């Protein structure tokens, strides 16, 4: 029977796998830092996952090539494919968390579903989670979530920043009264995040909020946009991801909705979201927390050191895309936290626990960013025991279809702390009571 070959083959694979895994040699002496990277280069959201993963990987490759690692410790970047699927994400987490001398140092789960899985696990395994601008918003409260970091901005900062931008265009917050804002959102935990904030802000400013959910994966939006055409909202906000964004931008342009009144959040504002709509997408806005483009010294250095040596994770011409830059800045902050952790410990033999200390002491100033080759790329970040998300400042970028690139049109938009801070506290306390957590004392 042919099956015997198959069984033999599988058995050989099963036997060979652990043997080969242990035989991977590490350079003697140098401490090895294991940094898992949960990526999704396959599945429905791959177009967004690939550039992010490339940016994340390229920065570590650069450090390895240029400096031989971080402070003399070599970097072992372990990519694990999740396909944006929660169960595969859990498998990846369990598979990578104990690897190497250091164990996993920090996780970027890159999905709201996986983040919610890992939040309780992280505190038990003592590995910090860095959910940059996603995941559970109330994790910004370091007293209740000691192991979770979601700087530089949360979804609620983004929502508030988008409202503030709209207010500025309308000529002041008082002019928002009587206006209508429609929220087109992915009907999942991710998409529902901003609703509470937008509702609170609606009470405060007197605008009407219309909620328009779009089911996964988001190709079917005809009805949504018919509704928008009938409703004639003054602004449309979008919390979309993957194919949903492209469809929304196309539909908006086909009903001739004014693109400069259509604002996506930072997962709805990259090149592949707007390109399919062609000219129609011109003027589409999106919130973000870092600049687009490859005109920074760090990008040039990556092109020279990594891509010229054929060690790049992706295609050369895609360096500098919005999501590439997001992966890059995620890696930069991660490395800064690792450096800080080494500094605090006075040794480069750190573990996840030390990286958490490093994250809580993280202070990346504008001077430091310039030193790293990213001048005016993003905002300075300063964290502490209680503050796990800072500064929350939002940029707005606009798509220029003729030039084929994003341009920053507004910077320094501060979110409405008055509204957000109590919301975060309330949600964090609700989590604490639900899970019998006594908030830490942060003094």
């Amino acid at each position, binding site marked *: 029977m042919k099956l015997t070959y198959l069984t033999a083959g599988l058995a050989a694979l099963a036997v060979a796998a652990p043997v080969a895994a242990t035989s991977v040699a590490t350079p003697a002496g140098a401490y090895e830092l294991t940094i898992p990277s949960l990526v999704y280069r396959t599945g429905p959201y791959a177009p967004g996952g690939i550039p992010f993963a490339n940016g994340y990987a390229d920065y570590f490759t650069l450090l390895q090539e240029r400096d031989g690692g971080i402070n003399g410790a070599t970097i072992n970047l372990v990519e694990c494919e999740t396909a944006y699927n929660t169960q595969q994400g859990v498998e990846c987490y369990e598979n990578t968390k104990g690897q190497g001398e250091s164990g996993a140092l920090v996780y970027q789960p890159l999905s709201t579903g996986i983040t*919610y899985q890992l939040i309780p696990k992280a505190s038990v395994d003592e590995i910090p989670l860095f959910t940059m601008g996603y995941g559970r918003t109330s994790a910004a409260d370091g007293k209740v979530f000691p192991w979770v970091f979601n700087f530089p901005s949360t979804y609620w900062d983004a929502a508030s920043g988008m409202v503030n931008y709209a207010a500025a265009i309308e000529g002041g917050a008082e002019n928002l009264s009587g206006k209508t804002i429609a929220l087109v959102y992915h009907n999942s*935990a991710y998409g529902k995040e901003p609703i509470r904030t937008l509702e609170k802000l609606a009470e405060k400013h007197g605008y009407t909020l219309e909620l328009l959910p779009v089911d996964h994966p988001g190709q079917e939006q005809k009805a949504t946009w018919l509704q928008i055409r009938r409703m004639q909202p003054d602004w449309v906000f979008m919390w979309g991801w993957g194919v949903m964004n492209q469809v929304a931008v196309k539909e908006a342009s086909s009903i001739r909705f004014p693109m400069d009144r259509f604002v996506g959040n930072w997962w709805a504002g990259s090149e592949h979201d707007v390109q399919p709509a062609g000219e129609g997408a011109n003027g589409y806005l999106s919130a973000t927390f870092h600049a687009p483009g490859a005109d920074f010294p760090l990008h040039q250095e990556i092109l020279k050191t990594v891509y010229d040596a054929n060690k790049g994770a992706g295609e050369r011409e895609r360096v500098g895309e919005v999501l590439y830059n997001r992966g890059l800045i995620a890696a930069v902050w991660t490395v800064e936290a690792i450096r800080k952790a080494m500094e605090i410990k006075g040794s480069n033999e750190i573990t996840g626990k030390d990286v958490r200390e490093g994250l809580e002491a993280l202070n990346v100033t504008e001077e430091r960013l310039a030193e790293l080759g990213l001048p005016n790329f993003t905002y300075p970040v300063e964290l502490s025991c209680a503050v796990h998300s800072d500064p929350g400042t939002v940029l707005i970028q606009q798509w220029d279809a003729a030039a084929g690139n994003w341009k920053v049109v507004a910077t320094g938009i501060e979110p409405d702390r008055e509204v957000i801070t109590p919301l975060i506290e309330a949600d964090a306390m609700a989590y604490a009571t639900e899970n019998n957590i006594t908030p830490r004392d942060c003094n």
Partner: protein
Amino acid sequence: MLYREAGQFKTSYTADQGIFPIAQDRWVVWAFVAFAFLVVPFVVNDYWANAILLPLLIYGMAALGLNILVGYCGQISLGTGGFMAVGAYASYKLMTAFPEMNMIFVVLLSGGITAAVGSMFGLPSLRIKGFYLAVATLAAQFFLVWLFNKVGWFYNYSATGQITAPERMMFGYALTGPAAEPWVKYLFCLTFLAVFALIAKNLVRGRIGRNWMAIRDMDIAAELIGVRPLMTKLSAFAVSSFYVGMAGSLLFSVYLGAVEVGEVFGINVSFLVLFMVIIGGLGSIVGSFMGAAFLVLLPILLKNGMVDGLGMMPVTAKHVEILLMGLLIIFFLIVEPHGLARLWQIAKEKLRMWPFPY
């Protein structure tokens, strides 16, 4: 030589009707059960429990449930994901509304609630069959996921619509929540699966199971010999949903801990469990487990083999894995359309005649 029944005489009706008539089978099964209960809990670690064994046990339970409906009663269902969601949300509501309730009862009650919902969606099976029924149950899948996403009561009006399992204890050990030890979770799921697999085996061997199979094989003839289609079909839906609901409950509370309905209980899950049943073998209890093992373990094995063993890029490995899984499914269904269980049966028959086949 080793595997034959010569010299084994049955001296009572009980012995004659045993589940495993051949002594060697019994020994192997007892040894396997003893290993699973007495050895594995002591060696299991986080990775084995959370990435391999728990999904295996839970999907085994779901496949068992679906096999009762599809394999034994011939009613095609594509609503498994939705029914698992019912089990999960029922557990969540029970766990949050009655914090003192023992987890055993939470899982059983979740199964019961799912059984009620499942029988309701089983009502169309009295009028429609085959593909038409598949479409009706598909509607259940979409409706249930939509419902749990839409109505805030089901997720206690949490901001994101996610449900999170609070910590619950079992004999002084944390069973759910982050502090739960892997062996506690493993033993809990294993006990449920072992007990309910035994119940299922006896159900399908008894009067109820024979009724189901009569309806499956030819419903009109079955009706003529006195099988009541209403009760039979609905009982199949109820029992099947009971198992599927328990699987959903365990998946949410013990394994994942936090669930988002659209992602975890989407249509993919319905297909996955249906594939498990088809590949494992329709109308076979052991086939359900083989199918679950095939679809849960093989991707992980392939992934680990290719990424750690051969040093492939994770993304390439993923593409190859999808390709290989597809090929293997096609291959198995061509070699043996009746599933892995039938291959196992053929192997046993050959063994009994070895070394003198005819």
